[in-house]
């Protein structure tokens, strides 16, 4: 029993990170019908921004809550600015063209960010400083949870509540919902769609950056290509939950994280080697696309023409 609980905690930890990133995929898709493949790399950019802030502001030497908050918020702000810049200079000029053009631009952007970071920082992994003291808490039996895991859960939940509040209780949130419903009508109603789209990118990028910093607290090794696999899995999570659907992205993220950890833990009893954890996410993607293309929480309506 405690082993299962332990595996579930392990899985939900990574799942929360996937969920944070998946939110960005899903929001951008909801508004632009664009799969922003560079989004996984923003998660990496966030981790590097946090690394630079923490080391240059001297938080690395002494763990403190203040240092963590400054690093987290600072890297979210930097990532938001970069996300907006990407939208402005890479996606807005091609927005009117075919879907294929924007998709290829997104893939190009992803490669550009990855190798720009390899160029700037070299491919050498850096070790992320421990910003908060880490300790273990025994729940029951053998099941333990570390404070860095609790931090991931707490910050993720907080950010998701904040996001929910922005979308449903603020004016800009209302505008986002309007734009995602029908961008042309929204424009006719006097909504500044360019601003709403830029804001969406900023929001999604900030969440991904938070995921990057939180992961780096849990697994203190960052490198320029760390966003590829994590980003792909978050994308699968968004599709699983129903792309365009915000609660779906969270559910999808948690499910993917739990599924891959349970495969590591119990896969061998049903003949799946533990190293197939990456394959699990993609198997889920294929099954979802075959069985329920709209995803778990996605509405099964025909796309508007």
């Amino acid at each position, binding site marked *: 029993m405690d082993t299962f609980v332990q*595996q579930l905690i392990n899985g939900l930890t990574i799942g929360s990170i996937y969920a944070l990133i998946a939110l960005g995929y899903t929001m951008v898709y909801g508004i632009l019908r664009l799969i922003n493949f560079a989004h996984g790399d923003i998660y990496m950019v966030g981790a590097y921004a946090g690394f630079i802030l923490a080391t240059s502001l001297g938080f690395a030497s002494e763990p403190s809550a203040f240092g963590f908050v400054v690093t987290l918020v600072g890297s979210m702000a930097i990532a938001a600015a970069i996300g907006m810049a990407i939208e*402005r200079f890479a996606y807005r000029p091609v927005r009117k063209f075919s879907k294929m053009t924007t998709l290829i631009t997104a893939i190009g952007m992803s490669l550009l960010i990855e190798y720009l970071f390899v160029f*700037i920082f*070299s491919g050498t*992994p850096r070790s992320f400083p421990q910003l908060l003291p880490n300790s*273990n808490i025994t729940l029951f039996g053998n099941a333990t949870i570390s404070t860095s895991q609790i931090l991931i859960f707490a910050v993720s939940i907080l950010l998701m509540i904040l996001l929910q509040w922005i979308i449903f209780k603020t004016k800009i949130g209302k505008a986002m919902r309007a734009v995602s419903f029908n961008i042309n009508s929204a424009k006719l109603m006097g909504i500044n769609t360019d601003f709403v789209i830029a804001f969406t990118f900023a929001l999604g990028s900030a969440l991904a950056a938070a995921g990057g910093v939180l992961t780096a607290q*849990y697994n*203190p090794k960052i490198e320029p290509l760390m966003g590829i696999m994590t980003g792909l899995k978050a994308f699968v999570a968004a599709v699983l939950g129903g792309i365009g659907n915000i609660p779906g992205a969270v559910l999808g993220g948690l499910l993917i994280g739990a599924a891959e950890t349970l495969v*590591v833990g119990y896969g061998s009893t049903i003949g799946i080697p*533990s190293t197939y954890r990456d394959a699990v996410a993609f198997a889920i993607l294929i099954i979802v696309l075959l069985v329920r293309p709209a995803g778990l929480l996605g509405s099964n309506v025909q796309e508007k023409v």
Partner: protein
Amino acid sequence: MTRVLLTITLVFSIFCSFACVQKGANTSTSTTTGDTIKVGVYGDLTGQTSSFGQSTKNGIELAVEEINAGGGVNGKKIQLVIEDDQGRPEQAKTVVSKLISQDKVQAVLGEVASTNSLAAAPVAQEAKIPMITPSSTNPKVTEVGDYISRVCFIDPFQGSVMAKFAANTLKAKTAAILGDVNSDYSKGLTQFFEEEFTKLGGKLVAKEAYTQTDPDFKGQLTKIRNLKPDVIYIPGYYGQVGIIAKQARELDMTMPLLGGDGWDSPEIWKLGGDSLKNTFISNHYSAENPAPEIQNFVKAYKAKFNVEPDSLAALAYDAAKVLADAIKRAGGTDSVKLKDAINSTKDFAGVTGKITIDKTRNAVKPAVVLELDPASSKLKFKETISPEGSAPAANTGSNTNTAAAANSNK
């Protein structure tokens, strides 16, 4: 317009500030003069295991500096051509092809990771350019051909050393293995640890695997924890191992963790921290060894690079010295003569012990077991374990000076 300009300035300043913290990039030497011997070096100067490549490069540079300062080899100076393979096998193959065909090097030194050496060795063999790997321990590397040799021991020995240490010194009855599924090095160590540990009466209770891109390792560790092994053998590289140790301790797993020379990097202290208490590795040499040749090397290395040399630096230093010695004995760099000279190296007194290249072009040397001490970020000498049926530890320059060493030798 102002907004556009503002955005550009913002983005530009962010990237500039990123660029400022970047460490100096590596460049390869490429001046050509008449009276030099060109030696190619390839390694992972950037990438997942770049600390290995950097140490190796440093060790070779120190050796070459000393050789050139002493008048070179046969009156000729050695000139290094250094290439980065980013730790990727396909890249290793490409850069070695480039070193041989474009730079016309007369010998090649590298790589650390067996997977990368295995990718590049056929190129050197094909071109008949002698290649000495300082630290690739997988047996298959020198099986590629007679132009490929090494100055380190091989995995069967390294794997069995840790099995012996686990069974005899730590009195472990059960063990689990957590290996890197994509690394030839890790697979080799896993196999030979398992064989020896089982032979010594131990029981292997779990054999788990991870990949280098795994986001965490707690899934595998939780599974192992349930089986309560006395020790866990983790034959991997420092980048993952540091985090595995951290996560194992977070799961309240306090048993000793064992590993190989792939753990030996200053980076591991940053990644693993205090979790590295109660961990042991097999290695090529101990920087703590008071033997004068080792201490001289440690001192020279520290003076030049301001860090303690790890075993990869020591092996690289030895590899360059062995090559220079072979060039001297061959009377030049004729590839057949040079190859024969390298392969007939006998009792060469290196920092990592007396080096004798055997008929399979491996160096037969004892291994040391070191304990990791996170408090001082140092590797503490535990014991020496000799290969069976070969030279006893007493005639290996490096490891003769401790009572513990004498006791543990059979």
